């Protein structure tokens, strides 16, 4: 059992959810989700956010029925020891893939926008020890990083007012110019921006009055939705759709128009501040991966953490160019979509049947 002093109050679920959802995706999701719904893609963001709220509801129903309600326990209960361990391993692999993509995308941004000559492996030697330092002690440290990861980058929202000087309403008019199918296709892409919260399945037992924290989880998701909505709306007002198709990181492109007398390129400050939004993603996901492995194999949390960080290090060096990173992003999006909207409801139903069976059984 987890000791009471290791648990965090329900309120922090807001920060855990938001900080895990808002990360590297916020830099460039506008073009990706606009592939089908064009200038109406901001509606797709709303649809995706609401759909995610439904999944959060399902997760809470799933988790609240177990003593140590995390995905390891649920898998063990639902599938039995061996099959459960295999499914947990797959889940861990999914979390780690997400971590690798987040980290590599952020490093890519640093490479393209700030230091083209930087040695990636050496940069990783700076970031990864920081991740290890955060996750090797208590969960409360992770929560602290998540808290700051919401507070600091929130200042960047103010910069969204600047590009509005060039906003053209014609760029997003007429509203609802696309079919429902196109909107749904775009929504399915927008879901990728929210998938980071899957770690909820692991940190749930660390929350005091966990059942009551559901409101905060929905609020956190709502706040992420608000951020994505604001960013996408400003982007679609600022960029023409044909223009947007050429821009790789539209959010950084918005900062390109900012001119301060003492500060020529705002992106440098922006990208640096965004590290506070990326770090919670990394620490939460690696922490969750290490914990699931530790719970499954009893191998020790710290040892698992080091193993995972080494894997992360190697994975990030192997991925070298933009194309591979793009492909990996797409693959991750599809897996995330399948996991959240396919596997989680499926697990919920299966778990429910098993519980019924056990109650009525011998």
């Amino acid at each position, binding site marked *: 059992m987890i000791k009471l002093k290791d648990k965090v109050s329900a309120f922090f679920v807001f920060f855990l959810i938001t900080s895990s959802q808002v990360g590297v995706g916020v830099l460039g999701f506008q073009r990706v989700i606009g592939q089908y719904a064009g200038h109406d893609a901001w509606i797709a963001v709303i649809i995706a956010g609401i759909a995610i709220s439904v999944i959060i509801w399902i997760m809470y129903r799933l988790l609240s029925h177990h003593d140590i309600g995390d995905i390891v326990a649920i898998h063990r209960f639902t599938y039995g020891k061996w099959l459960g361990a295999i499914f947990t391993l797959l889940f861990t692999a999914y979390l780690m893939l997400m971590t690798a993509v987040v980290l590599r995308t952020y490093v890519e941004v640093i490479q393209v926008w700030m230091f083209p000559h930087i040695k990636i492996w050496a940069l990783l*030697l700076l970031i990864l020890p920081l991740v290890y330092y955060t996750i090797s002690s208590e969960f409360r440290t992770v929560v602290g990083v998540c808290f700051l990861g919401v507070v600091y980058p929130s200042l960047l929202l103010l910069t969204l007012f600047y590009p509005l000087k060039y906003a053209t309403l*014609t760029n997003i008019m007429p509203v609802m110019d696309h079919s429902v199918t196109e909107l749904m296709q775009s929504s399915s892409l927008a879901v990728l921006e929210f998938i980071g919260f899957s770690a909820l399945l692991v940190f749930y037992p660390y929350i005091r009055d966990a059942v009551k924290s559901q409101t905060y989880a929905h609020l956190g998701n709502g706040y992420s939705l608000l951020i994505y909505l604001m960013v996408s709306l400003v982007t679609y007002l600022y960029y023409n759709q044909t223009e947007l198709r*050429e821009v790789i990181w539209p959010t950084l492109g918005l900062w390109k128009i900012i*001119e301060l007398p003492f500060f020529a390129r705002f992106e440098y400050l922006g990208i640096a501040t965004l590290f506070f939004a990326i770090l919670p993603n990394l620490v939460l996901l690696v922490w969750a991966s290490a914990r699931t492995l530790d719970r499954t194999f009893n191998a020790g949390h710290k040892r698992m953490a080091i193993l995972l960080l080494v894997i992360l290090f190697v994975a990030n060096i192997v991925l070298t160019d933009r194309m591979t990173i793009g492909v990996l992003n797409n693959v991750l999006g599809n897996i995330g979509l399948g996991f959240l909207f396919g596997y989680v409801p499926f697990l919920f139903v299966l778990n429910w049947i098993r519980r019924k069976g056990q109650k009525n059984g011998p």
Partner: protein
Amino acid sequence: MGRNYAVFLLFVMISMGVNFNMPKKIIDQIQMVTVAGHDLAENGKVTTTVVTPFFPAESQQKDLRYTGTANSIYKNKLKLNEQASEQLLDAKMMMSMYNKDLAKKGLSNYVRYLLRDPSIGNALYLAVVEDSSEDFLNTVKFSKGVGKYMEDLMRHNVKHGPLPMSNLKTFSSGLISKGQDPFLPVFGLKKGHPRVKALAFFDEDKLVATIPIEKASVFKKLYESVEDGQYNIAASDFKASIQNMDSSRHINVVQKNGQIEVTINVQMDGVIREFSKDRASRYLTEIEKKVQKDFRKNAKRLIDRFQELGVDPLGIGERAKEQIRDVQQKKFKDVYPDIPITVKTDMVLTEYGVRN
């Protein structure tokens, strides 16, 4: 824990040590280009002239100029760097200029390289130069530097003068968008002194027409809402100047029986500052009427010219897309020259200064 910290420290030291050899850009070991001018040369080559400041003593500034000819921008950079004492960098560029001949051939390549570069901001000013930007940049000399001078010249003419807002952002939007064509200001020399001469209109990225700067304030009011404009009129019996002019314009596109019709409504208000007769207060309605008539006449002429040339700097294509569903922008481009476009005006003179 102590061992952990030792490992961390080792990692940090390795990381710092390895990345220490990254190419650095130290402020007194680089030269910041403030203006770059591109001219069409023979055989499709481009002559580029760059201006970069150097500081002979404290609070003194002089401009250095380098010129080179090559068939691509970055090849030219090599040539320019062969002459410069330090590495030339673009990040502080304030204006990028193109001569008319180059603009007529198409600017796409010479603008897109700016968009691709993360170190260049999108508020960079672009301009067309009448003859040769090399001559222009070599002639113009000011103590605050050509770059700063041209930037300031452009900025106040956009804020308070006849120039409509244009920079890298608006130009590239117009360039890439299907429902709008871009425009740029034209600079020229008069007795060795730079001045705004005209406004150049582009069909996609090729310059096709210019209008003299006197007509630009009409275009500006048709193109955007103006906060501090002016309008000068010389009617048969009086001359008047209206200052502090606010205007807002709305473009309405309707489709009647398959025929697209466009109405541009311009609402203006302003203050009389100059009037060739006594007692401006007695002539208010007359002035209002004559200004509106004059404005409509000029606007009509401009729009007719745009339609003849098939350029759409007012963004009527974008408006059509906004207001009529399923307008195809490709098809719109074909019908655009024949669309009836009417200009409607409304004007109020709110004050006439401190004397009536």
